[in-house]
């Protein structure tokens, strides 16, 4: 078991999930509460990363973030190093790659909140921030949880983007899924089996823990 890679995957997933929440909660609230047809385009755009094969997405990012584009040079000037082959590059890639997995459950959850409640709050003078923090989030707790869990796990299991953008540098971009792939490709099936089993076991435990604390079993849930 490559603990360094394991820690790196955890760190990547945590950072990505935090950034995704900061983006996806306002974005989903906008999609649900806002008016105008252009919001359909926003929702579509936020779902599109699912269509592209991850390796292709990774390749586009490699080119876009590379020193041959003005954008890539700008980012490199700000950070002091190019994004490709670095942890920050992986974070950018993961945020884009996992965006649909954060936005979809939140849009569904926010959308199922009773509009009468939202209208009443608005009449009482609640602004958008208050609407989200006092009405949408408390009433769509399960969706928020789903968004967190899906973003986190999707990033842990991320492979194609990291393969294209990472360069396999220990401690910076060698994530657990890359280690697993390397082990399989080197015919080291026994080690690969252990790595996969441990990853599955830990994820299963974490999921059960999260779901166990998130709801009272057997109780009637109100809409």
């Amino acid at each position, binding site marked *: 078991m490559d603990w360094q890679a394991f820690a790196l995957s955890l760190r990547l997933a945590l950072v990505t999930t935090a950034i995704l929440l900061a983006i996806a909660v306002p974005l989903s609230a906008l999609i649900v509460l806002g008016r105008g047809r252009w919001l359909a385009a926003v929702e579509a755009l936020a779902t599109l990363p699912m269509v592209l094969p991850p390796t292709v997405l990774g390749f586009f990012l490699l080119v876009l973030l590379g020193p041959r584009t003005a954008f890539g040079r700008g980012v490199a000037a700000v950070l002091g190093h190019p994004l490709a*082959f670095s942890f920050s590059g992986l974070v950018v890639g993961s945020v884009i790659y996992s965006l649909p997995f954060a936005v979809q459950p939140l849009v569904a959850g926010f959308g199922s909140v009773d509009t009468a409640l939202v209208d009443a709050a608005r009449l009482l003078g609640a602004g958008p921030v208050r609407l989200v923090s006092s009405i949408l989030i408390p009433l769509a707790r399960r969706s928020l949880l789903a968004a967190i869990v899906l973003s986190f796990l999707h990033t842990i299991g991320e492979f194609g983007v990291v393969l294209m953008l990472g360069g396999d540098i220990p401690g910076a971009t060698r994530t657990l899924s890359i280690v697993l792939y390397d082990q399989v*490709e080197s015919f080291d099936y026994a080690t690969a089996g252990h790595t996969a089993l441990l990853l599955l076991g830990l994820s299963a435990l974490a999921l059960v823990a999260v779901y166990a604390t998130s709801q009272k079993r057997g109780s009637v849930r109100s809409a």
Partner: protein
Amino acid sequence: MSKQFLATLFALLFLTPLGAQTPLRVAAAADLEPVLPPILVQFEKNTGIHAVATYQSSATLTTQIENGAPFDIFLSADLSFPKRLIDAGLADSTTPVTYARGTLVLWERKDSALPPPSLELLRSPALKRLAIANPERAPYGRAAVAALQSLKLYDVIKPRLVTAENIAQAAQFADSANADAGLISLTSALTPRLSADGSYFVIPRDLYPPIEQGAVIISNTNRRDMAHKLLDFLLSPNVQTELARSGLTPVK
């Protein structure tokens, strides 16, 4: 929607067209991707045998063949993977047939601010990122590490190496300028795209063990004759000359 339409759709989805002969299936190492297609076209012209190739790293192809992938012939980028199949009783011969030798080059973009590709470039501290293929499984990656070790540069340069999944991706890292230079195959460096974008320096052959590319015929093929014809064709003088033009060293 008419019944005929549905029937046609069904036929398209589930049935193999009548009379379509299964082509000869070739498992080919990634470095052959720029080389093999015109050779297979010529092969079909000469023999009437239609062959299709799948390009992957030699390790991936080996795993697939071990697990029953329906290939007829395997053109590896080294000898160890074909030997692995022979040892497992999955390939015909007792030793792989060497059909070409690979050449390792140092490739760099023409618009790079660093000095042109040379051994000096490898020694330069200004070289911040050097792309190589994965040395665990890509023969060119193994050769790159061996060459760096012969130059006593490996320990110095190790933190600056970026490892690509295969040799084609190593070329991509360098061509997109994300890596300052790459140790790649001559076959990649000679493709129109890379020869337009950059220049290369041939790494002296005494710095790394030869990259012998070996072929084997898969045991459970029922088209052994056709597979042998392809192997003979690869070893014929004309095709060997063709290989030399594409960046492989002929063995005949």
